[in-house]
């Protein structure tokens, strides 16, 4: 099982984002570096949910915003390690919609259940496989570290 390591600050930030946007879904990107067994996430970047027509149960990040996020990641020496979003009053489990719309193979998708406005369970799933035809979600072991992770060799 792959591992997603996040700092306490990142973990708290993505859960707080879900509470702030409740009853709508929040979304954002996770920036970090690849480690031997998964990703080390160093920052979470909030993104706007463009699905204003159905924001309570859909999210979409504008590609133009993704371009800016990735550009910023490169400038920091980081990569897009994955994405996060919330499920208002639904379990922190990937949905068929999440799966159909997932295309960042090798990245982690973090989902937080926000129950009645309060962040509950947060899970992470790695989009495994090699192609659109063979992709699949696999649970990550999500490790929340209290201290700043720091960059290897830093």
């Amino acid at each position, binding site marked *: 099982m792959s591992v997603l390591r996040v700092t306490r600050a990142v973990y708290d930030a993505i859960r707080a984002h879900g509470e702030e946007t409740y009853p709508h879904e929040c979304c954002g990107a996770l920036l970090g570096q690849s480690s031997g067994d998964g990703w080390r996430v160093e920052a979470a970047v909030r993104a706007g949910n463009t699905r204003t027509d159905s924001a309570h149960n859909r999210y979409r990040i504008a590609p133009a915003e993704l*371009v800016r996020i990735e550009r910023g990641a490169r400038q920091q020496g980081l990569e897009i390690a994955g994405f996060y979003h919330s499920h208002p009053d*639904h379990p922190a*489990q990937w949905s068929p919609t999440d799966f159909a719309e997932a295309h960042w193979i*090798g990245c982690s998708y973090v989902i937080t259940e926000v129950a009645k406005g309060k962040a509950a369970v947060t899970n992470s799933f790695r989009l495994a496989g090699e192609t659109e035809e063979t992709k699949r979600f696999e649970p990550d072991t999500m490790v929340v570290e209290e201290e700043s992770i720091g960059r290897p060799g830093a």
Partner: protein
Amino acid sequence: MTITIPTPLRVYADGRNAVEIEAANVASALDKLTASYPDLRKHLFNGDGKVRAFVNLYLNDEDVRYLPAREASPVNAEDTLSIIPSIAGGSPGLAVQAIAPSAQSLR
């Protein structure tokens, strides 16, 4: 020009996060990219040779789909072509499988 490679596709581009290409337009740049890294082709194009629907191409800050000449848009050495897979989803219709929380907080 510079073509940026997103995280999922770097494994098919010798681990590079960007590739320098000399090309006259976007289509030519993609052709040269996939000629250098053939494994990228099936990830960028469908069976009809069209760019896959979930693959967004941005020439600097412009969506190539909305440029007047689309993939025939001319490029120069200073341009950056970003390949960005889409990101979206939603909560209804949850998958039928065991719901097993995986978070292991070190609280």
